[in-house]
């Protein structure tokens, strides 16, 4: 109908073209407009979904629970944090969690570095592909299944003790201990360390190593002065994964840990599940957030976020 009424107007396709030109001219004239439109959705999602959850966590950690009804009282108090600081058990649990995260990270660095080095710089392409598949293979199955598998390996009547006894050795007695947790954590997070270290090592140009040896450096010195500094960002990036994943876990302690294997995550889960004490759980959950913030600042100092 519009076409009929405006007989003298340009045809529809031409008008569309003009409109398009106007839009692109506007984008050219005000560059911020394009940026705003492009980023609006992700920024909104980030602010509401991502920061929103963290903020509500932080806010609720200053509330309290009525012990009789289990309802949350919305008055501001620091009592949750003071309990956390003054009760020995929570300090023990927080320290245990931190220690485990650090131990698992170190173990994974030691295990992943030689493997990643071999994959990146020595292995032939076919072997490299095969190794890649083997590193990634565990990620194809559920994390829970792999933890249960470890439980049957480490059990008293399990595979490990069966092999040890066959060799005439005594039982390892690892089931339901912190050592069992350490083994399982190091296993499940290993791929998250191998991949970034591999990426960092692969990008070291061969001629750097040649230059190093031309200048008379032996292999140890080349490793210490050339390879390690260039691989460091990859190691730090991997350690962020292994450290934070261990810090936030509660399933592994619940399934392979024994008496005295509680993590921060387990306490959080119990406080929310048992008596709905969300404020206390939130207060305890801010501990790993703070630890990770410090960790990331240190990692930045080390240069983990700069491209090699």
């Amino acid at each position, binding site marked *: 109908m519009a076409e009929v009424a405006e007989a003298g107007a340009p045809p529809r396709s031409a008008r569309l073209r003009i409109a398009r030109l106007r839009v692109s001219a506007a984008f050219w004239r005000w560059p911020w407009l394009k940026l705003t439109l492009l980023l609006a959705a992700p920024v909104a999602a980030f602010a509401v979904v991502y920061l929103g959850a963290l903020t509500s966590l932080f806010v*609720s950690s200053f509330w309290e629970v009525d012990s*009789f*009804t*289990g*309802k949350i009282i*919305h008055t501001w108090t620091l009592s949750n944090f003071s309990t956390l600081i003054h009760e020995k058990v929570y300090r023990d649990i927080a320290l245990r969690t931190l220690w485990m995260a650090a131990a698992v990270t170190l173990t994974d660095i030691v295990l992943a570095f030689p493997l990643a080095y071999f994959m990146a710089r020595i292995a032939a392409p076919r072997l490299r592909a095969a190794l890649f598949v083997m590193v990634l293979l565990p990620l194809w199955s559920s994390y829970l299944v792999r933890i249960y598998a470890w439980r049957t390996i480490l*059990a008293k009547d399990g595979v490990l003790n069966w092999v040890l006894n066959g060799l005439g050795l005594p039982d390892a007695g690892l089931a339901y201990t912190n050592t069992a947790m350490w083994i399982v954590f190091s296993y499940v997070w290993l791929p998250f360390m191998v991949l970034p270290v591999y990426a960092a090592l692969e990008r070291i140009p061969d001629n750097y190593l040649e230059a190093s040896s031309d200048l008379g450096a032996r292999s140890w010195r080349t490793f210490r002065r050339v390879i390690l500094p260039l691989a460091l960002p990859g190691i730090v990036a991997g350690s962020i994964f292994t450290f934070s994943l261990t810090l936030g876990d509660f399933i592994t302690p619940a399934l392979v840990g024994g008496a005295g294997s509680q993590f921060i995550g387990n306490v959080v889960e119990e*406080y929310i599940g*048992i008596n709905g004490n969300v404020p206390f759980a939130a207060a305890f959950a801010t501990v790993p957030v703070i630890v990770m913030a410090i960790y990331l600042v240190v990692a930045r100092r080390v240069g983990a976020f700069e491209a090699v």
Partner: protein
Amino acid sequence: MSQARKRYLAWAAAAALTGALAVAAAGCGGSSGKSASKTTTSNLPSSIGPGEGALNLIEWPFYSDPSFANKFEQQTGCKIHRKDAGSSNQMVALMRAGGGGGGGQWDLVSASGDASLRLIKGGDVKPVNVKLIPSWNDFIPIFKSPAHNTVDGVHYGVSVQWGPNVLLYNTKKIKPGPTSWAALYDPKYKGQITIPNNPIQIADGAFYLEHSQPNLGIKDPYELNKKQFDATIALLKNQRKLVKLYWNYDTDGRAALANGDASLAAIWPVDTLALQAKKVPVKEVIPSVGATGWADTWMLAKKAPHPNCAYKWMKYVTTPPVEAKQALVFGETPVNPKACPFMDKIQAGSCAKYHLNEPLGYYNTIKFWKTPIADCGNGKHDCMDYNQWQTAWTQVTG
């Protein structure tokens, strides 16, 4: 704009955003708090209307086993959707998700005594008219209005089944078999013991002290004053050194027993049956002093979307033949004594095996789970409440 200025602006924006979100969060919380404190006077239904075609249950596994639930679905047209819970805590968490009261999603929850009072005090369940459940009149008297599901004469559900917490041991590894709860506190069995990871477990310690240290004056293991509580916690802290595993789900405890990691456990009869079915050499005992126990209640969610189907279900599962079937599927005891002949018909001698034919005095030896509260009936409010139990339990196991 200089780099420094830009960075300032970015920080200011982030701070403003966080502040705005904080205010929003606080606002949301505030409004929900107000609506929760509003008291709703619920009118009990006087009859059961036509079914709504669906019934959503939070249940212990097998509490709506198809062997008896299929018939219910055919009779009433209420299609059952079930969510199996592994622990009392998970049940409470599920009921409180989505704004509490079952979140408008769940109709009934098969809460045990350590969860039921929490659900009542938290306003997650609503009163039930027991006159609409004909079998209720036949119940063993103590299950008609037990303290864990009836408050001030108001029923928040109907009892369904109960069972004791038993002492289980591996007959090949523990010789001779223990006959007393003292075994769970005996250094002889260090590293072989598994115990539920549940604050209500403190009551087991108190129950043991009630008999081994009468001078503490413990009358009810769920009503402990400071002195009695501290003595119990000291006992449990010593026990922790002996414990191999605090199991979260009974299936975890079962696995530890089956794999040889534990040989002595505080666990449930259902686990004894499951382990024996797998040919694990275990035996359960209830020491002569008695035991703590659990009694489950079908409780009606405050925001139940299918209340008629829920009433129909409560009516159905408490009838003698269904009580008998469920008891033998799960390995527990009915609250309706008329189920006895039906049990024996399915499995000869099972009525006596599950203690359904015991005199009423027998029930005095079973201390049923109930959520501890500060008011323990002496007018002094000096008992340890569930929050304190929870905190102490974290200190024992942490």
